[in-house]
């Protein structure tokens, strides 16, 4: 079935829904690289006007990637909740934008609607929304998850403490962990990207983080960001696994290139649940995503990168994750060229994930070959703070010395707390106060010297 729109004397025609979606996507280099972007600005807006007329129901009838070929499509359509969809089932994409912006869309109605939305519906409406729309609607949502603390409450923001080191040196990792804790970071997770996938190196890091959390009784969780199958092996051999991590994508073929499938994720999810290590909840999965991953794996089926990304959230949603992190600027300028493209992508991902009911965080980041700098990151950080992001990264001085890219610093989180009044998760905030890191006002008290509970480390300095 084709789509068309007449603008003045010109008819713009689009052979199918996936072409229409790609042409309607705000400009980004990855879609140009894939050869599926609009030819020019006029065609892009024509596609957006055409897409605005498409009934939401059409996304249940016309799969962008065939049902028979792709288990993510099957997951999306087989788990769609028709009853939850009812309040918006009669709307077009354009009507849906108006509905989301209206008072009909509230925290309660959006939570109830989430199971009735498909990734494609959410991606479609995001393509005709401005940045302020993406922020305003996302701010109405609240997605709360729990393991050893409570993440995602309105008015709060958490951080992943990311103590990466190029050789996984225990003292080097410990130095970054201590610095991060003293700067009040780490309530979403203390999560390290290991330098190697070597099983013994990975489990050594698992023990290191677990021992620190136990010794200082920190209400948080640890994660070593290695392949899901390595987590399974670690669980089977008794290593201390809090969260199971995996990078995921929005097509079966892209997930295949990551060496995963829904059934492998299911197995890991069940294994982590059986450990029962959470104290206040059992959200045990940590997923990372990012626009461009399906194209990078040559597994995008002609679907635009933002829609592929949103489909990854359907994969995440199945496993009730504690954290979903869109690593927005890491992939490089061939997918997101500059600060403008990275900023919009980050806000789209947060909006789409939240509408689908996911605990969205963002790795607000860039590489040195992208046309971006700290000013761009400050804009995205501030906007995501206003939008109600669940968590961001925290790294010493924004410089990841292992992965060679820049993400948000420990100080950046404090900036959001200060200008937007966003304390960390309540259990973690209480711990910070108990440890003398925070004063009574959720503000940093420590600085020149180690607070008393850390004073025994003085002769290690």
């Amino acid at each position, binding site marked *: 079935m084709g789509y068309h729109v007449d603008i003045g004397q010109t008819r713009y025609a689009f052979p199918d829904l996936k072409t229409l979606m790609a042409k309607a996507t705000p400009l980004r280099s990855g879609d140009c690289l894939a050869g599926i972007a609009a030819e020019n600005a006029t065609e892009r807006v024509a596609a957006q006007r055409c897409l605005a007329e498409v009934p939401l129901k059409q996304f249940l009838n016309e799969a962008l990637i065939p049902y028979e070929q792709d288990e993510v499509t099957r997951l999306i359509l087989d788990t769609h909740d028709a009853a939850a969809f009812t309040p918006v089932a009669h709307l077009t994409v354009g009507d849906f934008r108006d509905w989301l912006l209206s008072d009909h869309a509230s925290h309660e109605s959006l939570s109830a609607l989430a199971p009735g939305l498909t990734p494609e519906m959410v991606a479609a409406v995001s393509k005709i929304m401005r940045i302020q729309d993406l922020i305003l609607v996302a701010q109405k949502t609240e997605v709360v998850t729990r393991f050893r603390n409570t993440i995602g409450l309105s008015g709060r923001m958490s951080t992943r403490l990311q103590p990466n080191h190029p050789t996984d040196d225990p003292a080097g990792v410990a*130095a970054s962990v201590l610095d991060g804790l003293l700067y009040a970071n780490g309530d979403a997770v203390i999560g390290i990207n290991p330098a190697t996938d070597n099983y013994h190196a990975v489990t050594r890091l698992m023990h290191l983080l677990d021992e*620190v959390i136990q010794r200082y009784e920190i209400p948080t969780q640890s994660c070593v960001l290695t392949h899901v199958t390595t987590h399974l092996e670690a669980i089977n051999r008794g290593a201390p696994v809090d969260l199971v991590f995996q990078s995921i994508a929005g097509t079966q073929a892209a997930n295949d290139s990551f060496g995963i499938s829904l059934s492998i994720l299911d197995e890991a999810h069940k294994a982590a649940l059986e450990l029962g290590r959470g104290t206040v909840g059992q959200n045990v999965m940590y997923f990372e995503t990012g626009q461009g991953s399906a194209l990078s794996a040559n597994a995008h089926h002609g679907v635009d990168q933002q829609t592929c990304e949103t489909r990854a959230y359907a994969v995440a949603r199945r496993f009730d994750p504690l954290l979903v992190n869109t690593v927005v600027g890491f992939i490089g300028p061939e997918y997101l060229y500059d600060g403008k493209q990275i900023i919009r992508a980050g806000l789209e991902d947060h909006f789409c994930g939240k509408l689908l009911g996911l605990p969205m965080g963002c790795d607000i980041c860039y590489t040195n070959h992208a046309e971006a700098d700290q000013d761009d990151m400050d804009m995205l950080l501030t906007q995501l703070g206003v939008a109600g992001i669940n968590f961001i990264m925290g790294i010493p001085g924004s410089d990841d010395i292992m992965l060679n890219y820049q993400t948000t610093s420990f100080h950046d989180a404090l900036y959001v707390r200060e200008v937007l009044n966003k304390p960390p998760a309540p259990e973690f905030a209480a711990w910070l106060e108990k440890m003398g890191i925070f004063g009574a006002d959720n503000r940093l008290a420590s*600085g020149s010297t180690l607070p008393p509970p850390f004073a025994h480390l003085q002769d290690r300095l």
Partner: protein
Amino acid sequence: MEKNPVDKHQIVTSNSWASLRRHTDARIGLGRSGISQPTAPQLEFQQAHARARDAVHIPLDVKQLKTELMEAGLQSLLLHSQAEDRATYLQRPDKGRRLDADSAALLKQVSEQQPASDATIVIADGLSSTAVQRHAARVAAEVDRRLAAEGLTRSPVCIVQQGRVAVGDEVGELLDSRVVILLVGERPGLSSPDSLGIYYTYNPRVGLTDAARNCISNIRPAGISPQDAAERLLWLVRESLRRKLSGVELKDESGDAEALEGDGRRNFLLD
């Protein structure tokens, strides 16, 4: 109201644990102005970012590189990828992986005039011209000397402007070379703007993926030395010629033990 000007040494809150930087290059213990990064570390960061940006964007001085290669006794050919400029290179990885028409024609001509060689060294600017400018001629000379000592014949060194890793395979295929050794500027980090990588392919041809290549990364003063890199490469070359393959099936066993070393320093937080 503060009447007297504040002592400037009391404006910034310093961190007593900054000494822990002896354990890591991470930017820990920066201190704070209010809750923000103090001026000094803020500007140090900007300086590092500027260096990394320049590494990406300042064009490779090919004349200088040719001269240095010449001084090391190495002839070189100047080639160009299909990416006409840096902006295209950054957005179109497919173009950086292929030679432009003139370059391909030149190599065909060379190939008709000279017998096929065992090995071809290719130098591509990649994402850091700084790395190539600083280290490529020395690394190429170290590698060439060892290849010669093994009795292997070599083509002229091929310099590819706006080149990505896979372009080496096209060079090798056109020259009918048994193996290709590609030196490339790696994606620059703030603390490593000048890191060179070596990619190695047996039986190079267009269309191979990373699975067919071996990589030696982080060649720079604070990383692997040119001599060590050349030694590790030659181990790969010998094994590869013997087993007639490269890539994931040719694991660099010479580096395996290193992964688990470094246990010497403990997690002091548990003391």
